[in-house]
């Protein structure tokens, strides 16, 4: 069971959260995308062995979505921060 640090609530058991999906940016103007670009956004995801940015939802908690940087091999968590926010570096923390 992962131990996930919600950016708002702190470390909590994985069971409080639900996995959303990979943290991919939605095209700002879908109408201007080609079919290939749009289906790439819809269906195609990297399946990396290693670092992965993903969106989680704190369902049994604060109802916030956040980005989790998780290593898919080791489960090491490099960071958790609000979407569209820059991760706080070690110097700043």
């Amino acid at each position, binding site marked *: 069971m992962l131990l996930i640090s919600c950016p708002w609530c702190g470390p909590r058991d994985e069971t409080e959260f639900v996995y959303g999906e990979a943290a991919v940016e939605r095209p700002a103007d879908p*109408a201007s995308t080609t079919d290939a670009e*749009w289906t790439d956004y819809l269906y195609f995801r990297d399946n990396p062995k290693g670092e992965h940015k993903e969106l989680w939802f704190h*369902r049994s908690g604060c109802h916030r*979505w956040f980005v989790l940087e998780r290593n898919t091999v080791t489960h090491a968590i490099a960071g958790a921060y*609000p*979407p569209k926010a820059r991760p706080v570096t070690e110097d700043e923390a």
Partner: protein
Amino acid sequence: MNRQVWRTEAGGSGIDRGEPRSFTFNQWRLEGYAGDTVASALMANGVRLVGRSFKYHRPRGVFGIGAEEPNALLQIGTGARREPNTRATVQELYQDLLAQTQNHWPSLQFDLGSLVNAAGALFPAGFYYKTFVTNPKRWLWYEKHIRRMAGLGPPPSEPDPDHYAHSNAHCDLLIAGAGPAGLAAALVAGNAGARVILADENPALGGQLLLAPQQVDGQPGQEWAAAAHARLAAMPNVRVLTRTTVSGVYEHGHFALVERCTDHLAEPAPHLPRQRFWTVRARDAVFATGAIERPIAFANNDRPGVLLLSAVRGYLERYGVLAGRTAVLFANNDSVYNTARELAAAGMRIEAVVDPRPFVSEAAAQAKADRLHVLSGHAVVGARGWRSVRAAEVAPIDANGKVKGVTSVLACDLIGVSGGWNPAVHLHAQSRGSLAFRVDLAAFVPQSAGAPYQSAGAAAGVYDLAGCLQQGYAAGAVATRALGFEQADEPLAPPVISDPVGNAPAFWGVQASRGARCFLDLQNDVTTKDVSLAHRENYVSVEHLKRYTTLGMGTDQGKTSNVAGLALMASKRRQPLPTVGTTTFRPPYTPFTFNAMAGGRWREVGHPVRRTAVHDWHAANGAVWTDAAGWARPMYYETEGQAPQQRIDEEVLAVRQTVGVVDVSTLGKLDIQGPDAPEFLDRVYVNRFSNLKVGRGRYGVMLREDGRVFDDGVTMRLGPDHFHMTTTTNHAGAVFQFLEYLLQVVWPELRVFVTPVTEQWFAAALSGPNARAMLADLAPEVDVSNEALPMMGMAEGIVGGVPARIFRLSFSGEIAYEINVDADYGLSLWNVILAAGVAHDLKVYGTEAMGTLRIEKGHFTHAEADGRVTLGDLGLDTMISPAKDCIGKRSLSLPDLVAPGRKQMVGLIAEEGSHIPVGAQLGLNDDLETPQESQGHVTSHAYSATLGRHIALALVRDGLARHGERLYAVSPVMGERAAVEVVAPCFYDPEGGRQRG
């Protein structure tokens, strides 16, 4: 009369001779002592034969002394509390314990299944693959026989009467195993102030200190261990868990522990859980799990009376039990010599100590000088006897382990075997630590570099007592310092008196003569020949080897057998053992019952039922329940003497002819507020909401990003910036989560708050021609006229004495009002409605009638919008506003979504008197035998009392253009068929005049 003839006169540090315990083994009444295990008590009574093997039904006896035991699996207890496959070596004895053997017929002594042993050549490794791959039908015949012949004990058939508990704990340091290394680590960390959990699977702490006479700090080992236990128990920051196995290691310091709370008690107090499943978060851990002695393969090395050497020693030291009268001890390491002296001192005759090493060690030379019969450079090549060892065949061997001389026969009833030790690396490997092979130990040891947790003591390949203590102290100090505790000084290890150890060189087995079986895996009856066969047939990878031969499977997961099997495969492949590798170590370390994992979370606790405010009224009035997103909803209301369909028909007809009421509290409700709320809804729904007037509602559909229908419902505008959205019952949570995703991730600039309020409201829908008159009675202060409260209008006011929101909307196609009140007023409103309904012929209806009404009206639900369906497929694409974008709109022009041949929603009407089979596919003919191309499938169907016909909704290929066509609903599964006519999906009042009237 004391029949414990194999018990020594004195000794046995773990038993209390003043506390006799009688128990039953099969039909025999036997005696043991408090502190015995079932295995030690059986051995004290001279019981040799405790089971029959898995495949060949060979007689088997106790082999080990702890969790590693492969043979002595018994059924303990009776009835619903009968626990099969219990290791006799860990089951503690209690008064009137009932133990029974398993896997034999008709009896343990005379088992017809052992005929399989004679026919063993017919059952080689891969028997199942080879026999059944060409003709699977044979399996049907063989299965019932094989299932009876092969296998372990049967599970009890009654529900488990015991209860189980879950506990959560946090600590700085978890220590698995309380032998010398684990105790030392715990003392250091505890003294430094760290929060420590020390867990050991045995009832007493001490590990190997309890199983061999040794001295620590001038005290006998078990006394030192007991003193350490007392010191740890006195520390408020240390929790000691006995009878607790660290079973699994998971991510981020998560450990699973299983504590056996009452399995050792004759009469457990009813409030105690039988077992407790611990979820521990530890900042760090030390694995001090010891090592498991390994056997040496020789012919018939599975006979009762062949035991691990350390077990022979342990039964004497701990339980005062002699494992035999006359012993041949066979070991490739120096631990055998002290053992031999101890056994001889206790009265056992040591026929010979057989040491296969090509040299005479110092300890061996000393033993020879002490007049022990030591045969260096010899090996036991076979055991004689059937239900018990009668003799050992001993022969000289050369440096390569090959027999090079005359075999002599030594009469004995016990062969104690030690081929060295394998560190119990299970937890280390589970934590993703890697393994290194140490040639001097011929064993895999934890690779400390890069490992997330330290291993200490024998688990790390340190076998001498002084070294174990020293490494335990060091591990405790390293961990506590790393955790930030200051005064974690590493004490000097106390002086000890223990065995000379000496390295155990690789010696896995002797060359078998033709026809003899040399067992590697006793539990699964895997012999050296099976491994050779797997190699010949190219199952050479360790994972293939395991599955082809079943080596290392079963309840012991090859604790005594794996490495020897892998070593044999390595020699066959002519590769070093580390290259061949090991199979993956997975939790659990030892088996435990599923109920411990479930804990209290089963039935209602495991799956809580959501109840509406009037649940109890439903229950008291004959509700037949269905589950909808966890809610208990009445399908219909039962009355004696009426068929369910009759009840449903009455409920439907009440709505069509007078008035009905249904509890719709389960619909998802979201309160949406903020200056950008109208814009937000425009982006979410396919149709526009920003132009909706305050006090009015609109039916909306939202799509998924891939263009398929996601959810639908009516949203009312309560104010300029305030909306009340309803969702389907099933998708209430998903819609909320999705809206939050859009607001937080995609459009964080929108100023909108979404609050789920499903549970805050109770809602009842009144529908039918009498609904308006009835509402007027209920809410005399509210103008309910069609002008003041038209379709998709709303009103606020007092209904039945409580403040309410009235939404006029219709799912049934009749005039209908949804009355929403604070959930706490739900029952009050419901009772007022029922009282007022008497004058209007009101009937309460359930989800079945509601479903029938909506099918008659052609409204889709998730049965139709099943995740593959677009609004166009439902014939509703005119709802989509062309003037604005929305979620999913971009996908609607993708080629697949506009291609011909999509399944589209239609209505189906059956011929008079015939019904539409459940789950039917639609075909062009009604042939049930010959496969035909499916034209579509039935999604929802009902008997329509309104029309007197069976009707359905269906998804049919290009269905919008096929109205009027005849198709056949066929269900080869049910053996049913019906001719149906494809029609428009609305069967009743298609103009909608009734609901607007």
